[in-house]
């Protein structure tokens, strides 16, 4: 660790550090502050010279029940998607971390997380092709089953949930896997030698010890899903109006930026509340 006694060292520290943080300030922190400011305005200053300060945008959220309803709808969607990701992803992480050994484990793990790094928009689009009426999925099901089924999944809430689970499942698998891998195998052997059943080992050892990882994954799924708008638009059709799509509309269709800014900030408050609620357990994960 270099000390900062000399001015030369202090100058070097400043030279190395300031460009990155200056960039983050201009591109992230100032915009977030600016948006907070704009959420209290009647009009955008560049459009209307007679703009004023108001609480009206927040009052709009409170008085017009549409926004609260949509926020609840988005929160329900986020809970559903997170639940499915945990139910599907945690057993998968368990199998990868504790049942499969050696090189095949690495290869399989890489295969599981690889799609997650490919374009999320393109993956949602691929579901639109699979789910559309008389599409690949419907034909496959009809080929397997003797009777005729019409799934009609496209443009439903189910389609949105399927697309989002597909997008965010690797998060839960990644974090749970890393947490489960850190659990000492000797601990499991000791429990087994004392007669603990597989279920007891899972409930009393693996689950408690990997809970921070599982929760981190859940948060990583929940937060972006609350703010999702592209997935409901493509897969939800007319059912696809959510809190995120309303914010999108304020910025690209209705051009009521101050209202959009207020709605964004309410969403940010919800996100921060969720992160704060999860932080005691998440902190345990770091130590």
């Amino acid at each position, binding site marked *: 660790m270099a000390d900062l006694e000399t001015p030369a060292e202090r100058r070097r520290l400043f030279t190395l550090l300031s460009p990155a943080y200056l960039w983050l300030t201009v591109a992230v922190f100032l915009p977030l502050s600016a948006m907070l400011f704009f959420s209290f305005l009647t009009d955008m200053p560049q459009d209307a010279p007679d703009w004023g300060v108001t609480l009206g945008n927040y009052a709009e959220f409170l008085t017009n029940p549409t926004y609260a309803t949509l926020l609840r709808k988005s929160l329900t969607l986020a809970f559903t998607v997170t639940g499915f990701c945990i139910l599907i992803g945690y057993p998968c992480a*368990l199998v990868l971390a504790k049942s499969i050994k050696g090189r095949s484990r690495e290869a399989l793990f890489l295969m599981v997380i690889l799609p997650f790094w490919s374009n999320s928009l393109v993956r949602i689009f*691929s579901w639109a092709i699979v789910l559309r009426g008389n599409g690949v999925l419907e034909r496959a099901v009809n080929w397997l089953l003797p009777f005729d089924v019409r799934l009609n999944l496209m443009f439903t809430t189910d389609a949105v949930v399927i697309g989002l689970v597909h997008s965010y499942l690797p998060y839960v698998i990644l974090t749970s896997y890393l947490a489960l891998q850190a659990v000492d195998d000797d601990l499991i052997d000791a429990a087994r030698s004392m007669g603990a059943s597989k279920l007891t080992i899972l409930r009393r050892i693996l689950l408690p010890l990997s809970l921070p990882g599982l929760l981190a994954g859940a948060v990583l799924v929940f937060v972006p899903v609350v703010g999702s708008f592209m997935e409901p638009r493509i897969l939800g059709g007319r059912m696809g109006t959510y809190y995120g799509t309303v914010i999108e509309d304020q910025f690209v269709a209705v051009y009521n930026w101050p209202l959009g800014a207020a709605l*964004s900030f309410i969403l940010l408050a919800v996100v921060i509340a969720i992160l704060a609620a999860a932080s005691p357990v998440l902190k345990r994960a770091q130590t």
Partner: protein
Amino acid sequence: MTRSPLVLLGRIWLALILVFLYAPILVMAAMSFNASPFYQLPFEFSTTWYAKMAGNQQIITAAIRSVLIACATTVVATVLGTAASVALFRYDFPGKRILQVLLFPPIAIPWLITGTAMLVFFFAVGIGRGTPAVLIGHVALALPYVIVTVSARLSSFDVTLEEAARSMGADAWTVLRRVTLPWIAPGVVAGALFAFAVSFDQFVVSYFLSEPGDSTLPVLIYTAIRKGFTPEINAISTIIVTVSMAVMFLATRYSKFGGSR
């Protein structure tokens, strides 16, 4: 070794998840080679859609813009991010913890909020919409990934190597160039690949910051899908998935992020 039913069940579960993850992508790829414009079966092999795509000037322009923005983002974010990581590793100073925590908002806040905030701010200060705005946004989103990846590599760096070099008369910049940088090179390469992927795959922030008619590839695809999609979009989407998976495959080979331990 005998295998219990539970182990077998686990393998089947894993296999089903892999099918779930890859099937839609493979279907999309297959359909890009299907002659029917309405995704009709039976499948009939054709490269028409790739030819049409190659002749679509809008797609080609957007693709070139996306690659250029991703390259520029990679260079800027990697240089700034690596410098910051080295500073965070080498020096202890008041407020360091806060600076490290500040890396998380760009990752943790939904891009919808970050993107709209950037739009509002860039309009207020006169940058407006367009490629410069997109570039500023992408670098900011990529920086935390670079810093986290390079810092992870640095944490295994033996500081006594630097001290040894110094004791033999190397000045600070020589130490950085000849000792520190070669050690962290794999982390830097991985960080650069992450930065490229973050920019190349970025949709939300680009969507709010690009000028209509001056958009990146994902934004163009989104607009096209909402207008009613054609297999041309399948073709370009298949190429995108292939490119980004290849980049990430390389990145995981260079870093320990999600890879072997």
